[in-house]
């Protein structure tokens, strides 16, 4: 690990001032950043510890929503009574990620900023990676790409975003509140927060240098059943091959409203407006779900090892909708 200096911020303004130093990075839970610093993929020369900032509360927001402090741990958020009762999709997604130990340490803000698990980014030093070393090429495109993106990828990068939480936030239409270096707060819609790789895959979010995530804002949930399903190589403690978060409301056998987001398929949590449009005002049948799945994957591209993900994503969406509608029927 490269040497670095360390300071602990006690208030948000102090944190953004401290982060103006060249080579400075915020650290909170550290579960991803320190892992990458040990591998010298990340090489900050100054760490600003934000983990004790007073950003740990869950408060009412707007007309029936929630404001979630960015320094809350993943497990505290998943255990919150209001989240479990009104946003079960978010609790389910958080609980499907990592392990009990990691969820206790990892922060909500840090979850949004976790880096891809592409092995060429993470481990394979001599192989090119445009994310690790811009301009060095993408080794995954013609390499081992079983876990890689099928939607929204580019010739420069086919990595996926590993977050489960972000998939739920996408289906719930969350906003991210950030404090800028000008000491002003702004909000970024979750779908604008993570970027597609394009030709700058090393720039992963809409954050400006030094901006600090202060909160996640949830609007009131839309009516309907919420369900998260994650498909992976192990039953637990593993990243998704494909995951799906849905909110679906059925009245008289017809779908009144639907939200669909995928994980494990793209450089960002993938909200599928195509699937949602295809579902609404249609009968809640498997045929409808299959058409929505086809619409969601119409532009999907496999790279060889990951071709199976296209069919897997379709089937995972269908199964999740079948289960969610059955739960809705029992309610």
């Amino acid at each position, binding site marked *: 690990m490269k040497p670095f200096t360390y300071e602990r911020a006690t208030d948000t303004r102090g944190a953004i001032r401290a982060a103006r130093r060249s080579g400075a990075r915020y650290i909170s839970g*550290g*579960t991803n950043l320190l*892992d990458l610093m040990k591998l010298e993929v990340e090489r900050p020369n100054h760490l600003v510890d934000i983990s004790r900032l007073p950003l740990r509360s869950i408060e009412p927001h707007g007309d029936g929503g929630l404001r979630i402090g960015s320094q809350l741990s993943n497990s505290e958020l998943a*255990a919150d009574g209001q989240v479990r009762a009104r946003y079960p999709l978010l609790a389910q997604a958080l*609980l499907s990620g990592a392990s*009990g130990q*990691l969820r206790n340490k990892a922060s909500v803000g840090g979850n949004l900023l976790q880096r891809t698990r592409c092995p060429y980014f993470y481990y394979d030093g001599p192989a090119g990676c445009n994310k690790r070393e811009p301009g060095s090429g993408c080794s995954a495109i013609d390499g081992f790409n079983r876990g890689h993106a099928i939607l929204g990828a580019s010739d420069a990068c086919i990595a996926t975003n590993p977050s489960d939480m972000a998939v739920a936030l996408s289906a719930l239409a969350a906003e991210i509140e950030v404090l800028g270096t000008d000491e002003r707060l702004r909000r970024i819609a979750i779908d604008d927060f993570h970027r597609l790789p394009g030709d700058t895959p090393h720039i992963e979010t809409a954050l400006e240098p030094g901006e600090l995530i202060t909160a996640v804002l949830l609007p009131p949930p839309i009516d309907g059943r919420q369900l998260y399903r994650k498909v992976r190589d192990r039953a*637990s403690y593993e990243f998704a091959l494909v995951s799906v978060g849905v909110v679906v409301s059925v009245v008289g056998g017809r779908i009144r409203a639907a939200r669909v987001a995928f994980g494990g398929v793209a450089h960002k949590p993938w909200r599928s407006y195509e699937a949602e449009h295809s579902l609404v005002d249609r009968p809640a049948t498997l045929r409808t779900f299959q058409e929505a799945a086809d619409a969601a994957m119409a532009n999907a591209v496999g790279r060889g090892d990951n071709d199976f993900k296209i069919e897997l994503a379709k089937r995972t969406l269908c199964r999740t909708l079948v289960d969610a509608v059955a739960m809705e029927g029992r309610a």
Partner: protein
Amino acid sequence: MQVALTINGQARQLELDTRTSLLDALREHLHLTGTKKGCDHGQCGACTVLLNGRRINACLTLAVMHDGEDVRTIEGVGTPDELHPLQAAFIARDGFQCGYCTPGQICSAVGMLDEVRAGWPSHVTGDVASSHVELTDEEIRERMSGNLCRCCAYPNIVAAIRDVAAEARP
């Protein structure tokens, strides 16, 4: 940097390089070698300790980040003369072979049972909104998935934890 930690109830002062993980501070500086280094990347759980009562991976955090905080390691969980019920249950159920993962397994189980008592749901909990957790074997396996055992003593680890959870039930 100067770091003050409370380790197993005792105040300790350390002078550490900023890069020192909490795990290395425990093992190399305080010579508390019960906490094990397995992967050093948060994948195996051998370094699990209790930070302010919650289980974490000691390898993925910096000691300097925990100035003034409370750490409990396997040395503070029980001693050979006074075993913690989980330690006794691991022996009774033969919940290990080589034993390298065991301190992490036991610290993790201590933290996990507290999480269950607090009503925290897991990935296999049917209804996350329910405040009651029925600690089935499936729940134990899911909640302990952050602790790997390469000897594959899993069935006996689950049995040991099940025994202690059943005793603790009112």
